[in-house]
Each structure stands twice: as structure tokens, then as C-alpha cells.
């Protein structure tokens, strides 16, 4: 199966010229990445330190507006992970353990939204959640409520929208881990007279731990940088860090302050990922060399 099987010694010598040139094929792409991705990020770093001075960071770390925003951002990210885990765990379990047609349907339901525009999905939530939206209209007509409930424009709306967008990441991480659990282990536990609930708690749940960790990590980190969903469904008076970055740069044209906020968010994201990568394989999360 391996493509990296070494050719015969003679062939290796004969084709050495061919082999050594392959690396060069990566150069144009690497150059594009450098010019349009690395240079902009580096320039952002420079601006954040020099426009007008590194004091940007002091302001961004000490001002109460920003501190509150970091707290809100972390809180929303934690809630999103919790909701994704609660919804994703049974879903992934069924997907990993049911017969082929059912697991294919569930796989479709999770991959379809994965590729669907986040903007459209968030916009669709406004149709459901706004004051004269579907849910409030329905409940008002049934007489269950007297006036519309605030379902969006607050942390609830943001969390619901973000959880729905990020749920596929959680489910896919969980399924990968759960498929590795040998069903015979549970059978063994049951045959020793252990009940189904305890078998789940003592055998299946601990073994699915790596999936929970990987899914939680990727959802948490992605949630930290989410912009569209909080901008559309969230509370404008309690902006997340991403919204403050956009406001700084786009509305106030404060490149230094916005840049500093951006660098802090970036460093936070990378540090959490690097710590997390000690425990899970990040390549697996992005789908590199995963099962096909």
C-alpha cells in the first residue's frame, strides 16, 4: 500500500535527479502563502507595536471594556463546547454503532451543514429566533407566552447559532474515537454481569475520552475567533473579541489597537492548540490521512 516504498538501489541512483526536484513544486504555493498570509500577519504584528506604540497592548489588556469582552468570549466558547458535547455525544454514538444505512444518513446530516455557508445558516437562525420569528409567533399563537421572548440579541442566540455551526467538528472527532473502541470490550463487560449503564460509564465513556478532548479543543478554539454568528445573533452591547477587532479596524480605523487585539486572540488560539496538540493529533482533526 505504501507509496513511499523505496525503489531498487539502481533505480534510486538513476532517478535521484528526478526525486530531488519534487520539493521545488511546493515553492510557488509556499510563496503565495508567504506573501498573502504570513506577510499580512507579520505586518499586523508590526502595526500593533508601532501604531502608535506597544502601549496598544497595555490598553487592550487593562481596559475594562476589553477585559469584559475576553470574559464574554471565553464564556460563550465554553457554553458552545458544552452544548456541542451534549448534542454531539449521542449522535456520534449512534453514528459509530449503527448499521450502514443509518450511519450514512447521519454522516450526511453532519457533513452537509459542515460545508454550508455559515452566513446563510446564521441568517436562517434569525428567521427562527427574532421577536416576530417562527418560534415566538408559534408560542404566541398557542398562548404559551404573552410577549415575545428574547431568543437572539443575547448570549443564548450566539450559543445556539455557534453550537449548530460547530457541532460537525465535535461529531467527527467523537466518531473517529468511538470507531476505535472494540465492541467486544462492552460485550466482555456485559458478560461479566455488569449492567448497560455501568458498562457505558466504566468502559465506553473513558475510551471515548480522546474524541471528547479533540472535539472540545477544536470547537473551543474555533469558537474563540467566531465573528459572523455573534455579530448577527449576539448582544451588540456585549461584543466578543472578534467583534471588537472589526469595530476597531473597520469603524474606528485604529489599526494599532485592532492589530493588538488580533495578535492577542491569535496567540491565545495558538497556545491553546499547541498545548492541546500534546494530547491529540491535530493532523487528524484537519482530515489529513484520516480514513477516507
Amino acid at each position, binding site marked *: 500500500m505504501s507509496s513511499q516504498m523505496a525503489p531498487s538501489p539502481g*533505480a534510486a541512483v538513476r*532517478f535521484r535527479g528526478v526525486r530531488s526536484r519534487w520539493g521545488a513544486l511546493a515553492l510557488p504555493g509556499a510563496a503565495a502563502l508567504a506573501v498573502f498570509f504570513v506577510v499580512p500577519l507579520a505586518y499586523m504584528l508590526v502595526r500593533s507595536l508601532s501604531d502608535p506604540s506597544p502601549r496598544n497592548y497595555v490598553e487592550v489588556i487593562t481596559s475594562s471594556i476589553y477585559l469584559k469582552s475576553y470574559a464574554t468570549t471565553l464564556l460563550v466558547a465554553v457554553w458552545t463546547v458544552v452544548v456541542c458535547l451534549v448534542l454531539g455525544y449521542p449522535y456520534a454514538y*449512534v453514528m459509530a454503532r449503527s448499521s450502514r444505512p443509518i450511519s450514512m444518513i447521519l454522516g450526511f446530516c453532519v457533513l452537509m451543514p459542515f460545508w454550508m455557508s455559515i452566513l*446563510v445558516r446564521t*441568517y436562517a437562525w434569525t428567521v427562527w429566533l427574532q421577536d416576530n420569528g417562527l418560534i415566538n409567533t408559534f408560542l404566541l399563537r398557542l398562548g404559551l407566552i404573552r410577549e415575545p421572548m428574547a431568543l437572539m440579541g443575547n448570549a443564548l442566540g450566539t450559543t445556539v447559532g455557534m453550537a449548530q455551526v460547530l457541532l460537525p467538528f465535535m461529531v467527527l472527532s467523537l466518531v473517529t474515537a468511538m470507531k476505535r473502541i472494540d465492541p467486544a470490550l462492552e460485550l466482555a463487560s456485559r458478560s461479566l454481569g455488569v449492567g448497560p449503564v455501568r458498562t457505558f460509564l466504566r468502559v465506553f465513556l473513558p475510551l471515548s475520552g480522546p474524541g471528547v478532548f479533540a472535539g472540545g479543543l477544536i470547537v473551543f478554539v474555533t469558537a474563540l475567533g467566531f465573528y459572523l454568528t455573534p455579530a448577527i445573533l449576539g448582544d451588540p452591547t456585549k461584543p466578543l473579541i472578534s467583534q471588537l477587532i472589526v469595530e476597531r479596524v473597520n469603524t474606528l480605523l485604529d489599526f494599532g489597537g485592532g492589530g493588538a487585539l488580533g495578535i492577542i486572540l491569535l496567540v491565545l488560539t495558538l497556545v491553546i492548540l499547541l498545548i492541546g496538540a500534546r494530547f491529540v493529533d491535530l493532523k487528524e482533526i484537519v482530515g489529513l490521512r484520516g480514513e477516507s
Partner: protein
Amino acid sequence: MRRVNPAVGAAAALVAVFLVAPTLVVIPLSFTEYSVLNWPPHGFSLKWYDEVLTDPTWRSATMTSLKVGAGAALAATVLGTGIALGLSRGRFRGKNVATIAILSPMIVPVVITAVANYFVFVKWGLTGTAAGLIAAHTVLGLPFVVVSVSNSLSRFDRNQENAAYSLGASPLFAFFTVTLPQLLPGVLSGALFAFITSWDEAIISQFLSSPQVRTLPSLIFSQISSGVDPSVAAAASILLAVTAALLASASIIGAVSRRKRSS
């Protein structure tokens, strides 16, 4: 296989509904007759589609999105295939670091990429241009191509190339006649995903668009803040339909290549 507890199965079914159903509401909404949100939708009308397809603002946004998506997909596919080949076959130090660097556009929050691009693109005069949007979206689509082509490469047996060389084929000839045809499914699905990435992207677009050059998601985003108007629903439905069609093509490509492999 053990049977799944029915209660857990029901929970999974509800979550499946939560994943898929809320989004689909934009489709009936796009066919309503009145501009105010009403449920159930009253009447049936195509006028919002008519508006999106004929109104110059919507039309030009759609055209810009198609152009930018095609340009970014093409560039990302060519560059990304090169990267995948270089990473898997080249011999150089720091391959792991290089892999992470190349996948980093997937990891860095898009809002940060957008702001950073905006900073330098203002200086380079690339804001409000299709070229600027294409450049930024190319970088975003690159990792998808690299992952998809790398996965194809890991299934490709290098000895076939050596066989071609031993029969006198030049490296280029061998690559285009032996290797590339077998990588094609990976290359094509990478291209499709790169297009979808650009087609759906709203944040970078919001920063780099101008009133003259603006993508469909960017226009939808600014319209959402001005209230729920069914023409937004029509535009959103078009966005979904195009993505769905491309996803279907990608899965057909996948299915065909799997069948070829197994036969």
C-alpha cells in the same frame, strides 16, 4: 452489531434535525409573496428571485462571487497540488513544520486573516479588487487542496512511475500520463472545496469589498442588518443551491474513484 438504545437513537434523530432543518427555512421564505415575514408563508412568488437575478447590485455581486471563486479555486488547485507533491516527495528538513504552516490558514481565525489582509491590501491597492479577493481566498482554499491531494497521493503506488521511467518515459511525461490521472479525483475535489470556501466566505469579503466589487456573501451580510427581506432569502437559497450542487459533484467524484480503485 449491537442494537442502539431507542432513546439514544431518538436523541440522535433530533440532533440531525437541529443540524439540517433550521437552515432550510430560507427556501420557503424565498418563495413568499409579501415582504414581511409571515408563517406559514403566504402565496407563492418568484419575484424575489427575479429581483436577485435582475437587480444590478445583486447581479454584479453574484458575478463577482463566481469570478472570484473560479479564480481562487484555480490558483489554489495548481499551487496546492504542487505543495502536496513537494511535501510528500521532496526531501528537506522541517517537513512537519512546513505541513503545519501550510495548514495554518485553516487554524488562524478568519477574522484575523481578514484584518491582516486588509492592512496590507490597503497599502498594495488590492482592496476593492477581484485580484485582492482571489489572492486572499486562494490562501484560504489552499489547505483543502493540499489535504485532498495528499490523501490521493498516499494511495498512489510510486512504482508505477518507476515502471514508466524504466520504459523510457521522461519525468514530465510520466507525471502527466501516469500520476496525474490517478490523482485527479483528489485534485478535482480539492478544487471544488476551494471554490466552495471562496463562494461561502463573508468576513474577508466584507473587508476587501468595495461598493463596485463585492461578493454575494458580503452583500447578504450587509442586507441582513437592514432587516429580513425575502430577497436576502432568495440570495441565500441560491448560495445554498450552488454549494449543494458542488458537494454532490464532489461526492460523485469520490464514488467513481472508489469504484475504479476496487475494480
